[in-house]
């Protein structure tokens, strides 16, 4: 059992929790994730690692309430316990001093975007972070990003904060301005990562994307998370979650993510009815 030691609402339906999980905190690296199960009847869901503290033995997670399990997790308070947390899982993001690195982060990709930004900064890169959100009220982790980025470019879809536009618009402008970019890391909605990959491919900029397919065990056992990369079948949970974005079949990933849409709806509606 893993106790929740901190909780905050960052934006509507986006929550931050800190959990006592020393076995994960001691080994965690940027780009990795955990799989958790709330209780004996719970499903196993992957959540990316935002921050961790080896000394305190805690990990921090940021999640959006979208399905039954995340809604239920959102009701857990400080002192409540999560039944199972396993991790850290997946390959850590490959970090080296590329020179100038750009992180393109969309929505709730922000926690992993932050972790990777911090790691790239610590490796000596000049780090430019492009963080996009739906609107002002959904902007999260701005202060955190600021601390670990040389430049932070925030954008909102509706222009209610800083500027209007998608992250991909900002990326294009940055490239067009003649800035030399050595490495791009992208995490967020699949469609955004796909467009990022399309843009950087034209310019031959090495780009990695952190993928978020459906997972069950998260340890390479089931293949639910399989993605096509360079024509080969890869398991995102153990071969990824980061892959060369220019090789990823994003359309297939988008399609596979909808597999349980009906069931997700049934489960969420049943849950919301029960708690009302």
């Amino acid at each position, binding site marked *: 059992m893993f106790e929740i030691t901190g909780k905050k609402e960052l934006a509507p339906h986006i929550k931050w929790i800190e959990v006592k999980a020393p*076995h*994960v905190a001691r*080994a965690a690296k940027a780009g990795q994730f955990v799989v958790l*199960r709330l209780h004996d*009847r*719970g*499903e*196993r869901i992957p959540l990316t690692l935002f921050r961790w503290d080896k000394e305190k033995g805690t990990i921090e997670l940021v999640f959006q309430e979208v399905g*039954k*399990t995340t809604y239920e997790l959102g009701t857990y308070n400080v002192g409540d316990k999560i*039944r*199972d*947390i*396993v*991790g*850290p*899982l997946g390959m850590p993001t490959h970090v080296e001093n590329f020179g100038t690195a750009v992180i393109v982060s969309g929505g709730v990709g922000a926690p992993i975007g932050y972790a990777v930004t911090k790691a790239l900064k610590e490796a000596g890169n000049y780090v430019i972070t492009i963080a996009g959100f739906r609107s002002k009220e959904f902007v999260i982790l701005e202060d955190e990003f600021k601390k670990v980025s040389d430049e932070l470019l925030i954008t909102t879809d509706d222009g209610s904060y800083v500027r209007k536009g998608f992250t991909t618009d900002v990326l294009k402008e940055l490239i067009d301005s003649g800035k030399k970019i050595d490495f791009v890391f992208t995490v967020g909605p699949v469609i955004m990562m796909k467009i990022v990959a399309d843009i950087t491919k034209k310019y031959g900029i090495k780009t990695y994307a952190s993928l978020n397919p459906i997972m*069950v*065990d998260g*340890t*390479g*056992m*089931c*293949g*639910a998370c*399989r*993605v*096509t990369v360079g024509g*080969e*079948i890869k*398991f995102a949970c*153990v071969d990824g979650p980061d892959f060369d974005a220019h090789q990823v079949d994003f359309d*297939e990933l988008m*399609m*596979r993510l*909808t*597999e*349980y849409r009906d*069931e*997700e709806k*049934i*489960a969420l509606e*049943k849950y919301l009815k029960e708690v009302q």
Partner: protein
Amino acid sequence: MPKQIRKKRIKVPEQDPEARIHNFNEVALGYTFELAIEEASRCLQCPQNFAPCIKGCPVDVNIPGFIRKILERDIKGALEIIQETNSLPGITGRVCPQEEQCEMNCVMGKLGDKINIGKLERFVADYARKQGIMSEIKMAPKNGKKVAIVGSGPAGLTAAADLVKMGYEVTIYEALHEPGGVLVYGIPEFRLPKEIVRYEVKYLQMLGVKFETNAVIGKTKTLYELLDEYDAVFLGTGAGTPKFLNLPGVNLKGIYSANEFLTRINLMKAFKFPEYDTPIKKGKRLAVIGAGNVAMDAARSALRVGYEEVYIVYRRTREFMTAREEEIAHAEEEGVKFMFLVSPTGFIGDENGHVRVLKLIMNELGEPDESGRRRPRPIPGTEFGLEVDAVVFAIGQKPNKVLYQEVPELKVTKWGTLVVDDKYRTTMKGVFAGGDAVRGEATVVLAMGDGKKAAKAIDEYIKTGEWPAKIKPQNF
């Protein structure tokens, strides 16, 4: 008066096929006390030093010995004899391929039906469990040495049981949230109730074995860290990575590995969705590619979650199927349909990306391959489509590389299995391995046999400190 020989096996009561495809309860109901005694009375009681059945058992159970105890109505005595060499009788009694092992050698086979050794073993375990009968366990005094076991499947559980009895402090690391490995995620409830696995795990806990779930060695802790903490490490990590055929459309929705399909159902209880949170897709027609035990498990599980028509699609002919006869018979009784001499060539999806057609081609059998089985050859121009709502790949698994991908000292074969010698020593000092991690894909009882032999070798290593300069690979 000479002993009367009863040629016919005492039938094991089973759930009716019509009823059982609507539930996950166990199919074979097992012998009652009276039936067990009747079946036990058929045993010719070969002497222990000769009994061919014992020679066929990978964990050397004294079979005539425990059968005699059943006849004497001494179930505790029977259990004690079994548990001298086999810590998991409730499991082996259900899932061992007895027909290829102990029962294959049974002398009664020359006179009539062979003794139903598996079901008698199961009877002893079940009766003891229900009556709260425990065997007197001989535990050596604690020796202060520590052994880590990675993986809580049959190999790991067996090694742990033997080592803890020898006086070692044993910790089992398990990646999933529940111990048991393939016994809980793979083998369905109707073949091996999870209550049995939990009972055996509790028994080990009672002996003092510690379980650390949610621990992925290679991620949560490295093998190097384990070697610092423990005097020896046993890897029983199984063959957990599913194989797919990279055919056009293989990643369409509705196409699963048997591992995913079975894990959702067995471990996550998706058949009880939405009472349980994990979903499983339902539909009318499902095809399973493959014809081993896992394929049968997947096909029979599919019927139970509500698929109306379930096909086993196999590239060879019936006689080459690798599943146990009992499993094939059960699948047939339940209405699973078999298509032989066909191979998949691709999948066609609908506008939502969900599989709708499994494309197949007909085969003929050619020359025998390295396994001695005749190799299927596709016949040009015979392609056809089978309309489906779901497809399950049950074409085998390979070892999961998560643990050793960053341990260059551990040598693996070209099949991804760990290299070990005849004492189950890997190429890394202090590290032993057994079960599917070294065999590829085998059976529960062979994994248990490995766990036993490895436990003995671990004991020897810790006592002597001896490790060979070169590991001479054992062939499986």
